[in-house]
């Protein structure tokens, strides 16, 4: 070996990077892969910052205005609210000052934005002094220093628990899950491998048990728990290892579990089977009880348990001596157990717990209940399901508590109001439901006094949710009762916020109640009317929006209520700019459609000036509103086509029909919609004439916009308005844009199809050109282009035939036929569909290629698994079988029959149905024998769906070729010993009799023996299917004189009425019902009478069920058949039916 050769031994060591990578991988192992999805499920993690502002709300006790006269709750609430405003004002001042300072350069510019500590502390102290004892009004009183911390951090949290839980944002992996009460040392690295978890000294405080969640984790955890010192000693050799002392300043992240208590001997023995299956006992034996979240005492097994739950349910997680607890404490624990069951339990557990908590609601009292429920609802890690369940609890409990709920109204509102602006529809509905129940329980006066302070709250979020809550109250208690309050609020002189919220309430009422505002429309409009001249811009904007909502809700009625606001609105649009103007225009847009034609025309003219000016706007919102208003104006009756053509169209097209508008999706849609609306008035040629040249524009998105508009206009108004010159330009433009498209789009295809179909026979001169385009594109190398060309052929086939261009059709047909070797299934499907469309219009005899060539070509394609191909080919084949079966040799059809069996397995129902129908067509032309043989043989296959479809196909064959051709074969096949075949035969017969109806009278006697056999079979399915046959038979032959055989069958069906399997009993009951029709209710009554008063309850139950359906089916007809029971008369009860004993 030379010097250069490296030593081989060394090369066995992996490179450093690789080792590093593995080390990292090992570290990453701790990462919970579900953490991300878990946070998706959490409502708070999903929602926007605005939604999450609910966490910073403060609820206060609302005193019951009806019981204690001093009304302290309201006064306190108002004072608290004033203080909060003051607090915000001071904070704003500080911020401004700070900014000022920074700008003045007083502060050193080291990018440290933190204001001087001393200053913050001073402010905090000042604030604490100012708020003083009032802040205790929070419904969860945290202790003093923590509260100050909350103020300092500007985070008004709900509770001390929430404070802690909100601190770690990332979900902790299970290795370093911390019991809630251990403080995390600052600067601690969050992740450690298990080796540096050397236990420190035993802590004094007992560790809080229960950490882990899902049961799946539990077992894993048992095996993966930290090794104790003893275990490590046992595993590792005693020499060569030493216990490293923890670094200075190290505090264990995780409180050491009860490590010393672990008996090693048992746990080192590997796997063993425990005596008892009780998980808790096993855990206790292994000394692992605290780690295993198996069963909570008194609660039982839960579906899941989250680490966060431990904070709320700490009290019930450990075993306690119940005798030492006071009554209240017992009650509290009882509530907690029930809530835990409801929140985390399995459905049956949850159901009973929910019922219990509802029943005992008044016993528990509102206070203890809501003190437990509401903090849970404010948990940041709350998930949808949990929220739903807790909201449900509130709903049920509210109903029971009724007016006891009053002191908690505000607290509940703070928790529930956020639901009203949730993005989930069902959450909004739930929120509405609760608030409406709450207002019914607490009463209007109390609701108003509770929510009043929030109306001019400093936070916009609070005002927004409060307005929505008020609208719910209005819908629950009626608008009239709320009107005086609304009037007062909307006129509030004290603050513009109150006016703003008042008007917003009206807007929300309109949005929520829809046309139900009509009776109070004038009052509501008068409420807000003066807001149009308010000095605050925001109030004016909101007023206009409220009016828009009211007008939209009232449409098409109620214009007279808006009389007062018309003038200010129309004057307003000349005074305002920007957002305000947008809101005013929106209101006008909704009011104009309510007007009488002549007024509408006048007011439209007034507003048009402004609209045309705003056409130029660069503001996207404004553009959208302007377009919408133009659309609404154009749709009203009073606006004349003349006016639109002269005054609106020129500016409209100049401003909006530009390439830029095609780029933004929402603008695009709005422009198209508005133009289509304008076309309804101005006519097709006016609009199409203006834009048709743009079909040759160089920007593709713009061409598409033009095409879509033309499509919609022509589709709704037709093409008769288009003159010859326009027609030339239009067709030319369409062909151009169709050829020039780079992305094969549905829009172009639809446009082409719609326009050509609308033009109809007028398109004849252009057909040669169009078809040559198609032919050229059919040979394009892009599959998409070929597919689109084929799709276009499908759409044009009818028109080409109308124009008498059979030549072109046959040329297309031939080219498509040659293309059947296509390899892209989507394209192949389109090609087959196009061939089918041509065959449809030309007819089977004239079809080129001839059907006898086409069909054999289709046979192998039937094996294609692609759904689109399958559907297109089965449709084509079915059509050929229906119309031109005789042109194809019988051998070919048989081959197709076998291929069709495969299609019975298709997932798509349309394919299966088409296949089954094709069997019918084929059988009709070939005669049933061979087809039937194929189908009956197919009953032997394993697949159920295939067998079921075969039975349907047999029935269809029987229907098309007459039952006598099939029934003997079916009866013969029934004699096979195979179970599947026999049930298949029965099923086929059942379909046959269902389809042939009264014709079955001829075949009753031939099938009776088989039915005898089936109805007395041991197999349930036999009897079930036989009962179905009897049902169809009985209904078919009713009134045709087959009573003798039917009575015989009835005797065979009747004993089955005691069956318990749902399907069987269903079929039997239906058979008996059918017998009522064919045998008459009297016969049935005599059967039923035998068991109505049978000593065995089970018999009685069944017989009464039959009696009830008999009674509901033919109550009147039963009257003559009731037995004469006069001899049963006793004392005052005479049971003779005398009227029936009279005779003349």
């Amino acid at each position: 070996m030379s010097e250069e050769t490296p030593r081989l031994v060394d090369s066995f060591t992996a490179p450093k990077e690789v080792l590093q990578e593995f080390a990292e991988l090992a570290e990453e192992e701790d990462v919970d892969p579900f953490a991300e999805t878990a946070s998706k499920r959490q409502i708070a993690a999903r929602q926007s910052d605005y939604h999450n502002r609910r966490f910073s709300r403060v609820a206060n006790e609302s005193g019951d205005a009806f019981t204690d006269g001093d009304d302290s709750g309201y006064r306190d609430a108002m004072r608290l609210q004033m203080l909060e405003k003051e607090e915000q004002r001071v904070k704003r001042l500080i911020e401004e000052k700070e900014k000022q300072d920074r700008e003045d350069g007083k502060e050193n510019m080291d990018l440290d934005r933190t204001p001087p500590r001393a200053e913050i502390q001073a402010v905090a102290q000042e604030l604490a002094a100012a708020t003083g004892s009032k802040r205790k009004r929070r419904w969860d009183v945290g202790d003093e220093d923590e509260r100050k911390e909350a103020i300092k951090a500007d985070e008004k949290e709900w509770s001390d628990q929430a404070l802690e839980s909100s601190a770690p944002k990332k979900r902790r992996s299970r290795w370093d899950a911390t019991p809630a009460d251990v403080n995390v040392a600052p600067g601690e690295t969050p992740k450690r491998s298990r080796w540096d978890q050397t236990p420190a000294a035993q802590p004094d405080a007992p560790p809080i048990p229960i950490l882990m969640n899902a049961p799946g984790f539990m077992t894993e955890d048992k095996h993966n728990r930290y090794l104790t010192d003893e275990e490590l000693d046992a595993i590792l050799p005693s020499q060569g290892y030493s216990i490293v002392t923890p670094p200075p300043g190290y505090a264990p992240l995780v409180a050491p579990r009860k490590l010393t208590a672990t008996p090693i001997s048992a746990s080192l023995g590997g796997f063993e089977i425990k005596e008892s299956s009780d998980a808790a006992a096993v855990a206790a034996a292994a000394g692992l009880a605290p780690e295993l979240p198996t069963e909570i005492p008194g609660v039982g097994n839960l579906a899941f348990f989250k680490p966060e739950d431990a904070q709320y349910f700490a009290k019930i997680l450990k075993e306690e001596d119940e005798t030492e607890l006071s009554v209240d404490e017992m009650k509290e624990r009882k509530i907690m157990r029930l809530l835990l069951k409801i929140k985390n339990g399995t459905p049956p557990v949850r159901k009973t717990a929910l019922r219990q908590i509802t029943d005992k609601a008044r016993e528990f009292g509102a206070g203890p209940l809501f003190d437990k429920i509401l903090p849970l609802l404010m948990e940041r890690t709350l998930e949808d399901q949990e929220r739903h369940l807790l909201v449900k609890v509130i709903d049920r409990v509210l109903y029971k508590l009724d007016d006891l709920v009053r002191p908690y109204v505000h607290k509940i509102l703070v928790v529930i109001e956020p639901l009203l602006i949730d993005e989930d529809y069902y959450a909004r509905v739930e929120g509405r439901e609760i608030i409406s129940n709450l207002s019914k329980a607490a009463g209007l006066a109390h609701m108003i006094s509770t929510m009043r302070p929030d109306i001019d709250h400093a936070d916009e979020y609070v005002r927004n949710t409060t307005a929505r809550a008020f609208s719910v109250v209005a819908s629950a208690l009626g608008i009239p009762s709320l009107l005086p309050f609304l009037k007062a609020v909307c006129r509030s002189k004290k603050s513009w916020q109150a006016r703003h919220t008042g008007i917003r309430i009206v807007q929300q009422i309109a949005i929520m109640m829809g046309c139900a505002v009509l009776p109070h429309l004038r009052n509501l409009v008068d409420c807000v009317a003066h807001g149009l001249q308010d000095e605050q811009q925001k109030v004016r904007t909101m007023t206009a929006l409220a009016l828009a909502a009211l007008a939209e809700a009232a449409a098409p009625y109620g214009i007279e209520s808006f009389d007062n606001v018309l003038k200010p609105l129309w004057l307003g649009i000349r005074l305002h700019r920007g957002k305000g103007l947008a809101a005013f225009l929106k209101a006008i847009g909704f009011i104009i459609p309510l007007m009488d034609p002549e007024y509408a025309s006048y007011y439209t003219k007034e507003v048009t000036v402004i609209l045309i000016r705003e056409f130029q706007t660069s503001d996207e919102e404004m553009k959208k509103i302007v377009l919408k208003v133009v659309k609404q104006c154009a749709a009203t009756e009073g606006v004349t086509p003349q006016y639109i053509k002269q005054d609106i169209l020129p500016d409209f097209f100049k401003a909006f029909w530009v390439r830029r508008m095609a780029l933004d999706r929402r603008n695009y849609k709005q422009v198209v919609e508005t133009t289509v609306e304008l076309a309804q008035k101005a006519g097709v040629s006016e609009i199409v004439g203006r834009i048709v040249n743009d079909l040759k524009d160089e920007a593709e998105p713009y061409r598409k916009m033009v095409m879509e508009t033309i499509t919609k206009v022509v589709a709704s108004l037709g093409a008769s308005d288009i003159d010859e010159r326009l027609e030339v330009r239009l067709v030319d433009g369409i062909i151009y844009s169709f050829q020039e498209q780079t992305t094969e789009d549905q829009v172009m295809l639809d446009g082409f199809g719609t326009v050509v179909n609308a033009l109809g026979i007028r398109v004849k001169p252009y057909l040669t050109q169009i078809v040559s385009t198609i032919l050229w594109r059919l040979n394009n190398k892009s599959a998409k282009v070929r597919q689109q060309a084929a799709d276009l052929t499908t759409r044009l086939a009818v028109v080409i035939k109308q124009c008498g261009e059979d030549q072109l059709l046959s040329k297309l047909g031939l080219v498509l036929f040659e293309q059947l070797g296509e390899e892209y299934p989507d394209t192949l499907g389109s090609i087959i569909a196009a061939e089918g469309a041509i065959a449809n219009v030309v007819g089977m005899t004239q079809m080129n290629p001839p059907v006898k060539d086409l069909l054999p070509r289709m046979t192998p394609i039937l094996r294609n698994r692609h759904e689109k191909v399958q559907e297109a080919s089965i449709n084509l084949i079915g059509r050929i079988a229906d119309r031109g079966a005789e042109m194809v040799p019988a051998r070919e059809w048989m081959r197709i029959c076998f291929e069709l069996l495969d299609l019975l397995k298709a997932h798509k129902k349309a394919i299966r149905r088409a296949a089954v129908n094709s069997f019918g067509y084929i059988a009709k032309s070939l005669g049933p024998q061979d087809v039937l043989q194929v189908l009956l043989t197919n009953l032997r296959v394993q697949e159920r769906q295939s067998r079921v479809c075969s039975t349907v196909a047999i029935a269809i064959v029987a229907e098309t070729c007459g039952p006598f051709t099939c029934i003997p074969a079916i009866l013969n096949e029934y004699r096979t010993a195979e179970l599947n075949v026999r049930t298949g035969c029965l099923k086929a017969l059942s379909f046959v009799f269902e389809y042939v109806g009264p014709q079955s009278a001829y075949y009753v006697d031939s099938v009776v023996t088989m039915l005898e056999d089936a109805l007395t079979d041991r197999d349930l399915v036999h009897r079930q299917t036989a009962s179905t046959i009897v049902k169809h038979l009985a209904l078919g032959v009713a009134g045709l004189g087959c009573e003798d055989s039917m009575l015989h069958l009835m005797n065979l069906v009747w004993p089955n009425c005691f069956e318990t399997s749902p399907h069987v009993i269903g079929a039997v009951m239906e058979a008996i019902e059918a017998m009522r029709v064919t045998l008459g209710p009297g016969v049935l009554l005599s059967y039923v009478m035998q068991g109505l008063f049978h000593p065995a309850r089970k018999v009685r139950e069944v017989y009464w069920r039959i009696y009830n359906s008999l009674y509901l089916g033919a109550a009147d007809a039963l009257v003559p058949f009731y037995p004469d029971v006069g001899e049963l008369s006793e004392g005052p009860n005479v049971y003779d039916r005398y009227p029936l004993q009279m005779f003349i």
Partner: protein
Amino acid sequence: MSSELRYTANTQLEHLHARYTGTGHADLTKYEWLTHQHRDTLASIVGHPTLNSYLAIADNESIGRIKFETTERMLQPCGPPPPKDDD
């Protein structure tokens, strides 16, 4: 309960039945069932004009009177309910 479980698929049917008067159940008494029968009979007579006139001829009463009396009799066609024997 047991019957409900046995007919899970058809529980809806039972609920439907229970919504109509005249239907019965396993604990129906003789008196209740017969009362229903009588009411049905009387209702049938009122509902069929031919039966009405037949009875009118047999009783030598006016048709209206027969109709009225038949309707009246529907109140307690078999007399007052027998006292419940609570054991």
